[in-house]
């Protein structure tokens, strides 16, 4: 199992100018396996953090290790890190450039220096994973809808077979159906391929339904790190840093105040519905 380890990582934008921003403060993290969610208020440093994982930004201080090796120690390590920790940036649809969808997805694998045969295999597999219809492969990426473009960008990273799939707000700006289909697809991909997935999101609901572990960031620091119940039980602290718990958790807590206790560890609508049915007529549908 691949492992990603950050120790004592600090990052300062525009160091030494009047516009200095201390974006990451003393981050210590170990990530490997499962689906990890990173959540935090706007500007809390999530995007900066995920760009540390594949060496896009170099920490001002501290080390980033992939499988025990410091990625900044040697020059070619960084490039290796790019392929090992595949990053899909925020709003990735704006990075498409090739004349066809196929060519765009093939960009990453070709940069890895793979044979054409292998590239072809990976492109088709990645397209299938991100649910792109085969007939879309020959079209221009600029003619697709926003959601489809995002799938192409996703496939472009999946095609590199990374050990970590890092996604910065993969579902931002999509309708609920699109969100479910993209996030569901990613979860399935992680499970089937054994890839560790890291998702950055604003949505507590998405975090609760898809992640095994949640990391909460506030003003450049990791303030919580644990599974859903560990994190969502600290309701007041979450509110304090401008976040929230899933809506259904709040409903459950309001219900328990009014005498209908379905427990405090309610994080997904499905689970709540099941519990309620059970309590109301003992009939689980």
């Amino acid at each position, binding site marked *: 199992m691949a492992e990603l380890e950050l120790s004592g990582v600090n990052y300062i934008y525009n160091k030494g100018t009047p516009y200095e921003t201390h974006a990451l403060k003393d981050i210590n993290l170990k990530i490997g396996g499962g689906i990890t969610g990173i959540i935090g208020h706007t500007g809390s440093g999530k995007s900066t953090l995920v760009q540390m994982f594949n060496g*896009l930004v170099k920490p001002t201080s501290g080390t980033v290790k992939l499988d025990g090796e410091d990625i900044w120690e040697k020059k070619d390590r960084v490039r290796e890190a*790019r392929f090992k920790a595949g990053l899909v940036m925020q709003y990735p649809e*704006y990075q498409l*450039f090739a004349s066809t969808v196929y060519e765009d997805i093939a*960009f990453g694998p070709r*940069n890895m220096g793979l044979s054409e045969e292998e590239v072809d295999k990976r492109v088709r597999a990645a397209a299938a994973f991100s649910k792109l219809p085969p007939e879309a492969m020959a079209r221009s990426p600029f003619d697709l809808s926003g959601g489809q473009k995002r799938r192409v960008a996703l496939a472009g990273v999946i095609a590199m077979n990374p050990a970590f799939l890092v996604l910065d707000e993969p579902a931002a700006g999509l309708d609920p159906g699109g969100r479910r289909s993209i996030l569901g697809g990613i979860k399935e991909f992680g499970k089937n391929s054994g890839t560790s997935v890291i998702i950055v999101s604003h949505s507590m609901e998405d975090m609760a339904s898809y992640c095994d572990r949640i990391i909460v960031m506030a003003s450049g620091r990791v303030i919580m790190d644990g599974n859903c119940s560990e994190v969502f039980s600290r309701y007041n602290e979450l509110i304090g840093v401008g976040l929230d718990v899933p809506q259904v958790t709040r409903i459950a807590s309001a219900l328990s105040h009014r005498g209908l206790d379905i427990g405090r560890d309610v994080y997904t609508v499905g689970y709540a519905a099941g519990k309620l049915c059970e309590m109301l007529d003992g009939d689980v549908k």
Partner: protein
Amino acid sequence: MKMDIAFGQYCEGNSLLHRLDPRVKIIITILYIVAIFMAKNVFAFALMLAFTVALVIMSRLSVRVILGGLKPIMFIALFTAVINIFFYKGDEPLVAFWVIKIYKEGLINAGLIVLRILMLLTATSMFLTYTTTPIALTDGLEQLLSPLSKIGVPVHDFAMMMTIALRFIPTLIEETEKIMNAQKARGADFSSGGLVKRAKAIVPIIIPLFVSAFRRAGDLATAMECRCYTGGKGRTRMNVLRAGARDFLFTFVIIALGAGVILINIYAPGYSV
């Protein structure tokens, strides 16, 4: 690749210089340039230097920012100095070695010319970039040039284009960085290989950049039309520029400076450039 822009580097502040009317600043800058080229001898230079230092103090900017801004011109300044030192002919050489003869006049001349270049850059950037936002500057320029619209020059449209272009420079730089990062994340390599390989590596950046620039331009045009923009005719302004007492005072000081330089040139002896 890190992209630094010294160009258009406005420094937030509320000094006297920041509050001057941009039209006045443009005029003052022109007068200052004239004065500095009129200065002929050390005393005139001393006067200009005193004024320039006073400007720096008045702007309340950090000296580090200003010295940093001079860095790009340093090479040209030194080059000019060296040429002057070696090729200026005076009465008797200080140092004579093989074909090289260095004269006292040459040294002084070189010093004054370097000083002129540095003061020129300091003062113009002080007036026009450090203490004036690009938007205020184009506004000032538009109004100064507005008489030209009487003879059919589309001054307003040019000013609007310039404002929009300036407004989008930081946006496009930010966007370029984002796209570069996205392609690097897919293993793109911009810093190795021969010329052809590097030129090819730019394609994945240029295309998305153009696509988004056109998209932005289209969006902006639509947004402007939705707000009934039809060009400069009948447009009123939220911030009307009004020259106040300090603006007139400053203009007066600059004119006095120019007059002082002329008087010194005529009446004071000294090494001349």
